[in-house]
């Protein structure tokens, strides 16, 4: 049978996240996958070297809108290790609170994106509506829906007030009910279960061999979570489960993320219950003594790694960021092989890719290249939804309660 190569992408200003996948088909099955990243590379690491540590917090947290706090906390914690600062407990609790709220809104966003990729837009509407509860909390506590600016060297910039605490706890009660609902949908909605099962398969061995991280790895039974394995902040004082699943597919990745929503609700309640009465920051030097540090953080997408080297001035010598999606990209190729072209959108969406985290430089690309044989993302999603409709998976006929 003839092999046909279909490029999907590349960058288009209208696409949400610019990346390029080269899919080689034999008949309907995928026999080869190539991934070309770099369209969103912004030169952030270089830019960090020319700005002070405080300026860099604002730059680093804009690597990604949804993993914003993860990046900010990782960077600042590495700097604090070099400066040998003892961060007050209340600051660490507030960082953890914002981190878990971030995980909640990130996973809820993901649930909606997943729904959209398969044509189940009701799921998108419901989950993004529920997500607004978390966005409102973050806006009230930090002053912003994304890019919170809550961190500073030595602690946090804002304290959490009594009103905030009450509102967060009320919101957690509502979200707990919503999570129960999503769990039911994922268990009982047969069309959904069948649509997602067996898609994007990644064995435990391959997950480990290819260095997959986060929910992507945990859905292949890899029981690893940086909050537990290499605990940071106050996670050692908190009680939580690492959620894993053994389906090794997109369905499993859904089970894991919904389970983590539950755990984050529980964590937030513990954090607020045990919030100590200490200052929210310590004074930090402007010039950071020579040194280096490596920090790892469990971002919603998985292990986020930051390396910082200082040179005694107020600007870093080197800042290196390895965001979680880059670790999972290698696994995409393995997941898509032997699947159908129609599986591509949901399999890729299931690793919850944040190409902003992974590529960091903006450039406008000549769109006339490859025009004749390119599928942009929306076309591929439409193709996928129709392909599965022909096989009996019609999500327009599904009424979610």
């Amino acid at each position: 049978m003839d092999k046909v190569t279909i490029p999907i992408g590349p960058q288009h200003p209208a696409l949400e996240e610019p990346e390029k996948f080269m899919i080689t088909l034999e008949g309907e099955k995928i026999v080869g996958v190539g991934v070309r990243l770099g369209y969103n590379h912004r030169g952030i690491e270089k830019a960090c070297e020319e700005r002070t540590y405080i300026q860099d917090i604002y730059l680093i947290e804009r690597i990604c809108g949804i993993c914003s706090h993860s990046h900010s906390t990782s960077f600042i914690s590495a700097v604090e290790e070099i400066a040998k600062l003892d961060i007050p407990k209340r600051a660490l609790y507030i960082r953890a609170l914002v981190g878990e709220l971030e995980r909640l809104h990130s996973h809820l966003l993901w649930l909606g994106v997943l729904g959209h990729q398969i044509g189940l837009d009701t799921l998108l509407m419901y989950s993004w509506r529920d997500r607004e509860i978390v966005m409102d909390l973050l806006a009230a506590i930090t002053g912003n829906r994304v890019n919170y600016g809550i961190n500073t060297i030595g602690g946090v910039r804002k304290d959490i007030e009594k009103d905030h605490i009450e509102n967060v706890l009320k919101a957690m009660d509502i979200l707990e009910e919503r999570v129960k609902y999503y769990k039911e949908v994922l268990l009982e909605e047969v069309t959904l279960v069948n649509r997602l099962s067996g898609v994007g398969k990644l064995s435990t061995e391959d997950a480990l061999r290819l260095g997959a991280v986060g929910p992507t790895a945990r859905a292949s039974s890899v029981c690893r979570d940086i909050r537990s394995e290499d605990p940071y902040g106050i996670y050692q004082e908190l009680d939580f489960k690492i959620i894993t699943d053994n389906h090794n597919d997109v369905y499993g990745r859904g089970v894991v993320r919904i389970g983590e929503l539950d755990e984050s609700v529980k964590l937030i309640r513990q954090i607020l219950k045990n919030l100590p009465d200490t200052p929210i920051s310590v004074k930090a030097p402007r010039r950071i003594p020579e040194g280096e540090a490596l920090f790892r953080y469990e971002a919603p997408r998985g292990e986020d790694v930051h390396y910082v080297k200082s040179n005694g001035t107020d600007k870093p010598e080197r800042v290196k960021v390895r965001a979680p999606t880059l670790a999972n990209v290698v696994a995409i190729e393995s997941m898509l092989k032997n699947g159908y072209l129609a599986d591509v959108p949901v399999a890729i969406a299931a690793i919850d890719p944040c190409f902003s985290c992974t590529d960091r430089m903006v450039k406008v690309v000549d769109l006339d290249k490859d025009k004749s044989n390119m599928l942009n993302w929306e076309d591929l999603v439409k193709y996928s939804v129709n392909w599965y409709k022909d096989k009996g998976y019609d999500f327009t006929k599904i009424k979610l309660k």
Partner: protein
Amino acid sequence: MTEEQILQNLTQKFNFSEESIRVQRIRRIWINVEYERFFEIFDYIVKELSFTHLCAMTGVDSGSVFEVIYHISNENGIVISLKTNTPRETPKIKTITEYFADAGIYEKELIDLFGIEVEGTPVGPRYPLSDDWPEGEYPLRKDWKPKESEAITNG
């Protein structure tokens, strides 16, 4: 094994001097090695000590040399940052993809951003720079500065 035990084990096996290896804090070990000894030590740490997860690979421009730091972790969350270096005039290292299948993309970053040659790295597209990026321009080198942007005006 604890960090201290790992430090003892490695110091004995490879005769490290006190300056070459340190436990900076809990779960963080830092080791400096010359490139001639790199693979012998790397192999031992990955295979015998079971540091089986590659967290990241960092390139650093340190003037006369480029440092390459391999950050690898074990199941107990301990990270060994193994630092080696290659001369600035002819920077060249070998791939570690036999140990870590996912290392290819990190090696591509070193090639694109520092101009370090990586022997044996898998064939594939470059990362992260664009296909029309000019040759010989390595942005993360300290002597590379971005050009001033020009304002584009009509007429």
